[in-house]
């Protein structure tokens, strides 16, 4: 008989001898492992979804907004609270900074939109024609405004999908007119839905910047610069993102005449940075979810220890017999330890299957995206074996230390 197979078959026999008890013990581990797998997969799924949402904005996007910098890593919402950026800044960036493929200055105003009896308030963004490609917007129907329309200040609008739905319902909005603030605009395009989330364009309306200023007066700086609330731009070579940010920062500091030691009066942030910041946050959240599920695993482990202790007491006579037959303390210790590890390993395997099934069901309901990755599975199974070894250690030691004569005498 094999030296390694033997304790294994002994352990297997021990598990089989108490089917109900073994199954209940395994169930504790199954629940623990399954919840770890499920929660981790939900966490990973959420992370992946958030990141892909942001990346749909365009991974090579840089956003500059007015106002004081909020420090490293900070993510600011709508910019433009302090009006420091100008059209001229945008032009200077386009001319003087290399590796910049397109620059799109824009200003936003909250305006009332009225179509017949329906009305809504919406963030209206006055933009240049480059805005669509820079911000990675896709049209569902119609067209974005052209260079000519921008130049002559045509009163045309492109609607986000939610806004179009609110104002026009199922009717085709293209060619329809609507009142926006004090002017009447014609709808020429509707955007594809990008899904709700970070700065979703679904709720926005886009018109030429020149048209926006026919209803909202163009603010100017003391030097006469035409103020915009933000500038977005794309980097032609993504590897150069940081260099571009540095070049724009120094250019704007010079243009805004900021002395050494004075804080920036604008915010500059790349999508890359936002993604990496959010990845850290969601990664931590995923770990937290896993840790919470880990508590149930711990409880399962204590259950294993409990059962193994009972099992040792119940099988004193068997231990005594094995010792009389020549089993050493290490033989007995090994058999009980393997038995515990075997219980938790089976629990781990079943738990992975159950957890995976639950994740798939959650995914199928469409409420949440889940991602079961190989590293979670490997981690879960090794943790389950580790728990068996950890919580089986003391009961196995107890068993190995039994006095054979007393053990044989017990009933």
């Amino acid at each position, binding site marked *: 008989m094999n030296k390694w197979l033997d304790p294994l078959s002994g352990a297997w026999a021990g598990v089989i001898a108490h089917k109900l008890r073994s199954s209940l013990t395994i169930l504790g581990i199954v629940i623990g492992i399954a919840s770890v797998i499920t929660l981790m997969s939900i966490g990973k799924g959420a992370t992946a979804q958030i990141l892909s949402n942001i990346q749909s904005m365009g991974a090579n996007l840089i956003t500059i907004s007015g106002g004081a910098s909020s420090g490293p890593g900070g993510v600011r919402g709508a910019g433009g609270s302090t009006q420091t950026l100008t059209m001229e800044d945008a032009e200077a960036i386009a001319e003087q900074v290399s590796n910049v493929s397109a620059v799109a200055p824009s200003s936003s105003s909250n305006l009332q939109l009225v179509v017949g009896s329906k009305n809504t308030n919406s963030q209206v963004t006055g933009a240049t024609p480059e805005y669509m490609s820079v911000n990675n917007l896709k049209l569902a129907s119609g067209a974005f405004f052209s260079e000519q329309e921008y130049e002559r200040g045509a009163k045309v609008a492109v609607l986000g999908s939610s806004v179009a739905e609110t104002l026009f319902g199922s009717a085709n909005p293209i060619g329809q007119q609507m009142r926006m603030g004090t002017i009447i605009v014609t709808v020429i395009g509707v955007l594809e839905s990008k899904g709700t989330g970070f700065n979703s364009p679904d709720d926005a309306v886009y018109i030429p910047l020149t048209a926006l200023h026919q209803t909202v007066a163009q603010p100017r700086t003391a030097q006469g610069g035409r103020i915009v609330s933000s500038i977005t731009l794309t980097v032609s070579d993504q590897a150069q993102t940081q260099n571009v940010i540095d070049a724009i920062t120094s250019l704007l500091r010079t243009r805004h005449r900021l002395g050494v030691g004075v804080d920036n009066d604008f915010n500059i942030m790349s999508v890359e940075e936002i993604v990496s910041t959010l990845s850290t946050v969601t990664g931590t959240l995923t770990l937290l979810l896993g840790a919470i599920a880990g508590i149930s695993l711990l409880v399962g482990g204590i259950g294993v220890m409990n059962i193994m202790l009972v099992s040792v007491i119940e099988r004193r006579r068997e231990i005594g017999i094995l010792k009389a037959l*020549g089993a*050493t303390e290490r033989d007995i210790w090994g058999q009980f330890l393997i038995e515990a590890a075997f219980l938790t390993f089976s629990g781990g395997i079943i738990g992975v299957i159950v957890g995976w099934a639950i994740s798939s069901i959650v995914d199928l309901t469409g409420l949440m995206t889940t991602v079961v990755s190989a590293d979670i599975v490997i981690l879960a199974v090794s943790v389950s074996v580790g728990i068996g070894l950890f919580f089986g250690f003391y009961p196995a030691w107890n068993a190995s230390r039994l006095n054979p004569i007393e053990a044989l005498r017990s009933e």
Partner: protein
Amino acid sequence: MIRLQDITKVYPMGKRELTVLRGITLNIEKGESVAIMGPSGSGKTTLLNLVGCLDTPTSGSYYFEDMEVSRLSSGELAKIRGHKVGFVFQTFNLLPRLSALANVELGMRYCGGGNHHQALEALASVGLSDRANHRPSELSGGEQQRVAIARALVKSPPLILADEPTGNLDSRAGEEVISILTSLRSEQGVTLVMVTHDNNVAHHCQRIIHIKDGQVVMEETV
């Protein structure tokens, strides 16, 4: 083969001490069969456990095949039990969830292993070939004890120790068990030490040692 010199064994019983063996000196030769008799509580089983290396004496020396075993570690004692000693108990002590064959195989587990055929042969030698796949609960007392004997002899140990092997059997099954044990001695030269209450059983051995209150009180040769 076995030399006991002035062996004592004291068990702690709460605050008091219980002296079970008080200076036993005894020699058993290789191939001999010896019966140990005495009233209950006289220390027969304790003596047998000491001889079988399940326990160590409080004082005195015990030489097993010229090896001083009274000072060995529990691991070394286990090795001797695994290789040199076969136990037969009054209550059989088979594992109820294993078949007769698997119980016999268990006897080889801790002496480097053996194979299926050896276990089957051992079962055949006690006349139970046809019961190999029965569980202990499906066997009569006599059959269970014969399985236990097969488990003890499967590793061909030089020493077989039997603690009241017929104590739980009717006289016919007891006769069978005793004849198997004594034939092991006469045919294979195994040394046999047996604890018994039964005078008839004891008279199947070559020598009878009477102990009382932890001391040898009489020896007789049959």
